[in-house]
């Protein structure tokens, strides 16, 4: 588990039964936390398939959207596998829809 900032942001990583690393994000994904999230996710993606669980992210701004965009582009370039859980808070859904990012994410029902 990594945590930083006043935003209460943290990432916990566990290996799923399906062989994919599941990154559970919690707190605020914003200007203060997006860069460290990208580094953590990039490190995991370079090792194997990753699933992002955003269900406990209470707030996301355009820095978080940019972080997801960066990871998607790196996945394309490097042949990495990334999925994003469908369960999200209303604030996260709002910013992803406002920026058009929702349609670009590889959404997957994790339930």
């Amino acid at each position, binding site marked *: 588990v990594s945590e930083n*900032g*006043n*935003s*209460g942001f943290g990432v916990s990583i566990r290996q799923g039964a399906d062989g994919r690393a599941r990154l559970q994000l919690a707190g*605020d994904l*914003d*200007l*203060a*936390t997006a860069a460290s999230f990208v580094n953590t996710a990039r490190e995991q993606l370079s090792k194997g398939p990753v699933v992002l669980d955003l269900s406990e992210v209470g*707030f996301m*701004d*355009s*820095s978080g*959207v*940019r972080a997801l*965009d960066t990871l998607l582009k790196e996945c394309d370039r490097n042949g990495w596998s990334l999925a994003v859980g469908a369960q999200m808070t*209303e*604030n996260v859904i*709002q*910013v992803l829809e*406002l*920026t058009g990012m929702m349609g670009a994410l590889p959404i997957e029902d994790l339930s």
Partner: protein
Amino acid sequence: VVLDSSYPAVPDGLREIRDAVELLARDCGLRGREAGGMVLAVSEAAANAIVHGYRGDEGVIRVRARREDGELMVVVADDGRGFVPRTDSPGLGLGLPIIANVALRMEVVSEGTGTEVHIVFPCPGCAGEVGAR
């Protein structure tokens, strides 16, 4: 005036600004996406002040808000380098479009140094307070 506070222009300070704006949104009677939009817009304006205004330098972000005629005007002000294009911008240019999308109106005021972003939101909770400040 319902808010007039200054915050350090650092990424870790954004949460404190959002907490203050969330209370404002509740006072305005906003819920759900309307409240979330207000918090998001002000946070984006403050993040712009950090990234584009101060660019890593120390500084202060001042957030002022006043209610008038069923609307809430929030002004996010910095004393940074002014509103100039940044060719090495680390963002996707999403901040201002987000603000414009969730606000009733917005205006960027920058004359030389410093930038003010004026953002107007609906305030149904103060609709009866004609001229309330």
